[in-house]
């Protein structure tokens, strides 16, 4: 797979992985994945269900650690730092790498307390300061205008799309550099999906965003780079435009033209 790099010369790679293998017990889910993810860009992971997109995404904030019997081989670095070395600080890592899940999962607490949760557990208790963080995060996630008059009401009373934007605000509130999103709009109606996509567009210059999606139009719309996975292998990774117009691999082409998956 020798080829010219898809990245401009001045690209800073925030996440780099080298020969990553991942196992659930005895079952191998990822094979030999080497990939450099550029900073302050949107990178989309596409591929048929079960090909390992979520598994790979969850490696970057070590969420797979919470599943018993998993094992990782290879090298994963964020800003050059080996995040799986012994003694690596998972709390610090997860402050830097926020995550938004497929199904919106606000806590059964008030809107304010949801957003303030992260800052609080990391030691911010000053009321004024928390209020500022909450406001800033909600503005950032394009939810402020809808909820500013009911910050104390329960988050579970929000609509699905609002809940997902709240989850994004909650992730932003701890000041991450990287945002991992695992099919963040797959459970939402088209209108809410558009809002989330617009939001990603607004965040793209400030955050390194990695988004899993099974929706190829979505990947084409919102991402700068796209990685196609198949059965645990990284088949192709290139500028999104290239992937969708001139894929190099036959498998990629078959997938994006809808021949399988």
């Amino acid at each position, binding site marked *: 797979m020798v080829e010219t790099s898809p990245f401009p010369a001045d690209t800073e790679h925030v996440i780099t992985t080298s020969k990553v293998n991942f196992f659930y017990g005895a079952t191998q889910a990822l094979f030999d994945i080497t990939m450099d993810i550029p900073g302050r860009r949107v990178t989309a992971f596409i591929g048929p269900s079960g090909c390992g997109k979520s598994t790979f995404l969850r490696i970057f*904030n070590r*969420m797979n650690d*919470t599943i018993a019997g998993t094992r990782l081989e290879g090298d994963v670095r964020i800003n050059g730092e080996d995040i799986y070395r012994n003694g690596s600080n*998972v*709390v*610090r*890592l*997860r*402050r830097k790498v*926020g*995550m938004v*899940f497929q*199904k919106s*999962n*606000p*806590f*059964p*607490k008030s809107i304010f307390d949801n957003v303030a*949760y*992260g800052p*609080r*557990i*990391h030691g911010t208790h000053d009321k004024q300061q928390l209020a500022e963080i909450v406001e800033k995060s909600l503005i950032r996630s394009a939810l402020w205008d809808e909820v500013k008059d009911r910050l104390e009401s*329960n988050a*579970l009373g929000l609509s699905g799309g609002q809940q997902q934007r709240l*989850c994004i605000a*909650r*992730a932003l509130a*701890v000041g991450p550099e990287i945002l991992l999103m695992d099919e963040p709009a797959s459970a939402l109606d088209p209108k809410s999906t558009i809002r989330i996509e617009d939001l990603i567009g607004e965040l793209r210059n400030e955050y390194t965003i990695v988004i899993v999606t099974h929706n190829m139009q979505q990947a084409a719309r919102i991402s700068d780079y796209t990685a196609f996975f198949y059965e645990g292998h990284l088949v192709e990774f290139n500028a999104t435009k290239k992937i969708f117009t001139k894929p190099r691999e036959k498998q990629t082409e078959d997938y994006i033209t809808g021949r399988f998956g």
Partner: protein
Amino acid sequence: MWKDKAMRLLMLSAASTSIFLVALIFIFLMKESAPFVLKPGLGALIDRQWIPVSFVEEHFGILPLVTGSALVTGLSMLFTIPLSVLGAIYIAEIASPVEREILKPFIELLASIPSVVLGFFGLVVLAPLIKNLFGLGTGLTALTGALLLTLMAIPTVITLSEDAIMSVPRAYKDASQALGASDLQTIFQVIIPAALPGIIAAIMLGVGRVIGETMAVLMVTGNSAIMTWSPLAPVRTMTATIAAEMGEVSFGSMHYQALFWIGLVLLAVTFVLNVIAQRVLVRYGMMK
């Protein structure tokens, strides 16, 4: 169709039977205790002495029995709540699958021990222990009863609290961990608050069991109807009084009626506790 109807009717009658029975019991209690209101009057119940049989002057003061029940129940909840809630958290969130396999059957076993057997254990093992530990004249104290009741309440409260904790969606835990929360932060700031209604219900059921329990306290609390708040003093609870004296009391006497009043008070207390529990549940239930 007729099968459906018959089934409906059967279930309806089963349901209404219980309502009917409750009403019947209540009416019976009222009827048996009613004459006491006229003579000697309800004021007689508010007395610090319970001396229902006497050649000099009878006293039907239920205050020492109420304080006895309150002391034993209160002490017992003081032990039960932290032990059970921490135990439930451990089993649900921290224990390895192997530990869980070992712990759970033991808790179920504890739940299945008849209270008389526990009372026997209290009499033979616990009472002497407490007597020697505190250098008392007798080991039959409020504390002894409370400890036994704790053993009885723990399985219920642990099991129900554990259910409540286990039913908290995994997604909350994921969200908390992904924000960099430690396991303990996740447990105490997300999981426990989300499980709180269930935990409160579990505690209320535990209190119910403890207040109503008769046999064990009858055996180990020393049965002296003296008003005290000392955990190391012998006391007598309302339930134990009814159980001990109902067999010998002369039918229809003032003593007999006073025992029914104790029953009514007990009923009122458990009713109030239930209402409070419901209120709490509704309030937090809305939060869910």
